[in-house]
């Protein structure tokens, strides 16, 4: 079960309180009625589903009820950041820099080099 920080409640809460709401930053055209078939198909059907960082929407449905956006690594399930609906898409390169990653996720520790051991065989 994931821990998710709600940017409105400013608190980490268990995944049970949230509902995923699909890909973020899909723009509903205005006026939508004039949108071309291809553009509308892209808006309606085509999704990124990347391996790695994805921008997605969540709703704190059993909490404040607000929709917000998140950047999550689909491989590790790590949240890089969360931000309020309507705020601009964050710059991925800043998120990935070690300084920015620190508060959002635990440090990636590397095992010290294996000690050399006499093998009796």
């Amino acid at each position: 079960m994931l821990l998710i920080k709600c940017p409105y409640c400013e608190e980490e809460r268990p995944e049970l309180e949230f509902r995923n709401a699909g890909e973020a930053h899909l723009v509903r055209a205005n006026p939508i009625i004039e949108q071309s078939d291809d553009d509308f198909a892209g808006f309606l059907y085509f999704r990124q589903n990347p391996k790695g960082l994805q921008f997605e929407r969540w709703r704190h449905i059993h909490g404040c009820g607000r929709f917000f956006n998140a950047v999550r690594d689909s491989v590790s399930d790590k949240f890089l950041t969360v931000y309020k609906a309507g705020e601009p898409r964050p710059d991925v390169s800043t998120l990935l820099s070690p300084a920015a990653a620190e508060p959002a996720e635990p440090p990636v520790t590397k095992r010290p080099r294996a000690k050399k051991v006499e093998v009796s065989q």
Partner: protein
Amino acid sequence: MSASIHSGSNRIPGAGRLTPAKTVRFTFDGQSLTGLEGDTLASALLANGIHLVGRSFKYHRPRGILSAGSEEPNALVDIERDKSRKQPNVRATVQEIYDGLRVKSQNRWPSLTFDVGALGDVFSPMLPAGFYYKTFMWPKFAWKSIYEPRIRAAAGLGVTPGEPDTDRYSNRFAHCDVLVVGAGAAGLTAALSAASTGANVIICDEQAEPGGALRYESDVIIDGVPGFEWAVAAIAKLCAMDNVTVLTRTTAFGYYAQNFVGLVERISDHLSNPASDMPRERLWQIRAKKVVLATGAIERQMVFANNDRPGVMLASAARIFLNQYGVAIGRKVGVYTSNDSAYAAAIDLKRAGIDVPVIVDTRDNPTPAVVDAARSLDIEVLTGHAVFSAGGKRRVSSMSIQPTRGGSERKVAVDALIMSGGWTPSVHLFSQSRGKVAWDAANERFLPGTYAQDCVSIGACNGTDGLQATLDEAFGAGGGKGKTVVATGGTDWIGGMIGSAPGAGANTTVKAFVDFQNDVTAKDVRLAVREGMHSIEHVKRFTTNGMATDQGKTSNLHGLAIAAEALNRPIPAVGLTTFRAPFTPVTFGAIVNHARHDLFDPTRRTPMHGWHQTQGAAFEDVGQWKRAWYYPQAGEDMHTAVNRECVAVRNQAGIFDASTLGKIEVVGPDSAKFLELLYTNPWEKLGIGRLRYGIMLREDGFIYDDGVVGRLAEDRFHVTTTTGGAPRVMHHMEDYLQTEFPHLDVWLTSTTEQWAVIAVQGPRAREIIAPLVEGIDMSNEAMPHMSVREGTICGVPTRLFRMSFTGETGYEINVPSDYGRAVWEAVYERGKPLGLTPYGTEAMHILRAEKGYIIVGQDTDGTVTPQDAGLTWAIGKNKTDYVGIRGLLRRDLVANGRKQLVGLKTVDPTTVLEEGAQIVANPNQPVPMTMIGHVTSSYWSENCGRSIALALVIDGSKRLGETLYVPMPNGVIEVEVTGTVFFDEKGERLNG
């Protein structure tokens, strides 16, 4: 004779830590046996000289006890407390005995010693890996009906219980600073270190006793006391600390994202008479800031011919049985090893008075110190030798020894044989945490490499060798200040071999087992490679190596090494199969936990539920709601009751509980604008006090929900939704309000449970309720069809809707939920003399179908547009935007050939079509026929005196009057396509 004799002839006086006086009686396959309190089933059986405990999965070979822990692949038994509390596939090495324990062996018939299925072993040359996949191919139908059921019956594990589990299971969530998994020397040190900083610590161990390897290491001194004593004192110290939780008999089975770890605590499986209120197991879901993995290492077997004979056992297991339980696994025990650690086992056995005729070591030059120690006790040590085969059938009787480079064979008689192929660090949980393992080429083992979470591995599972180094590392991991304690003794975890031993290599045909439980031999793995399985994942699936309940704890590395050798590629290039949760099998009971029966899902009841019960109503489940389905009177079946209810509504009046309808209060200056965007209909010009039927689409243009919306004020709407759709409609509205139209000043509030809704429908509806209503002019002129007024009924505030889902003059009385039953009863008392009849959801469905009113989700299925459903009139013609407006313009949605809603009348009026039945134009065409539609709603209509049906049919609106056909198993039914309204086509009754 000492008392210990009574608990088994192989109990050695003075050895072990159990109390001889505390005896426990249990049965194994009906045989009454005695063990000691603290015994596992395995140690108690061995104490009684029983090695043969089961039959293998595929060949039905006799099998014994391989290990002394949760890695056990062989000794699986069936434990039965009573008919409903039965557990198959219990590892004898994990189950503790208690008075009255009843154990049965598995996978044998008619008995363990004479097993007909063992013929499979004789014919085993005909049963290589993949045999089943290749042989039972034809005829195709036979796989499901003949081959699979028979193979499953012959090759199987235990039998699942036939009755529901009556045990209770509990559940707990916990948070901690440090979770330590494993209470061996490393885990205990880390926990003490972390606890000394004031951190909140949880430490768990799957065993009943702490100590890990300290339970059998006989020469360890920590902080001046023997290792096990130190461990017991350490646990006592931890138990006494307020900031520490100690969980024994608790397995950390799954490591999930963000340091979320699943544990199962076994609470009563070791008790003779658990209290009735005691849960059997407790599921712990722990979120830890930091996880310390001290999971140790698992000893591997040697892969040689007949290494599966009962009595052939891991060396460390023999040490546990001796040093913890005081049990000799045999009286003449041979040793076969490829590393130093088995020497310590041989020395312990010898010192306990057990004959150890020979240590066979595959190495040419073992560590001199261990060889000298063994020889000084008069144990013969043969270096550069191998055991080529074990003799005996139901128990090992001899070992055949040859020099590894070839030479003459020598046979040594033994009654047990212990072996050590070396130690495999237990990286299961680390791997589950999505950490990446790294290949330690020097020691031929996988170790934790790159970590993915805030986690640290210490001790044997981290490849840390030597007790002092382990304690230092563990103390550091706990974050404590100061110095760790001094320790001496203990065996190392290094050395050994992986893959097949001499005599079981390439081009041999002996049965040298890699995976005992799944009966996978070294030659099976080689066969898989020859057959073209070049990835370890394919080898695993072809041979089933590592796929048993033990998940290959002893077999994975051997299988990998043999495959790598056959492929002539280095081990890391062949790769390791993925470790998945659970580490050991977890009961369904622990996972399902409280979510059973009434607690599986909430039940929602309306305020009038009790009244329906007193009237003998039958209920139906609609989502979580219980709804009154029909109200049978004495002697009535469902059909008769429903017909009576339907006729009463059209002739006098009916009363119906509509409280389950979803209700949303839409408030704010931009409310009408918001509804314009969410519904196809126009709302800006809807007058205050007026109602309108609204249709909600998804962006793709398909119908999502429908309902009546009332305008109570310029800035206030009372929106109703379908019963099942209420939560998703609210979610959908919130989504658009928050993210697409945030500029609109609107507030949404779910009021479903705030209002009780009493529908009164029928020609006498007004006459019935008017005397109870105050403050509302209910005349047809003042309050026409589709209007809403606020006032009081029976003195209770009400929103009175004049609307109809039956086609009759009707009202829906909304009152605050708490008054629902009182008002309902008052209305019913008032109306009863006038023929007011309660009707349920079945009559409601028929009455609305007689009028062609759709039910979203029954007559629509997520691919139906308003045009398809004949609701074009509900779309605001001049609107420039609403959700779905663009979707409706899609080519396929405006093309010909769409399925459209029509009515169907069977040519024989007494025939009632089946809902879901397919419709064809020509019943004489060859099968498979071209289906042009299906029946969505179908009923007997007492009011029409015939059957009626609604259907979605291709180009249905152009087919009015056509004859179509519904082919059914008993013949073809002829139907006429009609309009969707079967009763009062002009709709005059609404305005009565």
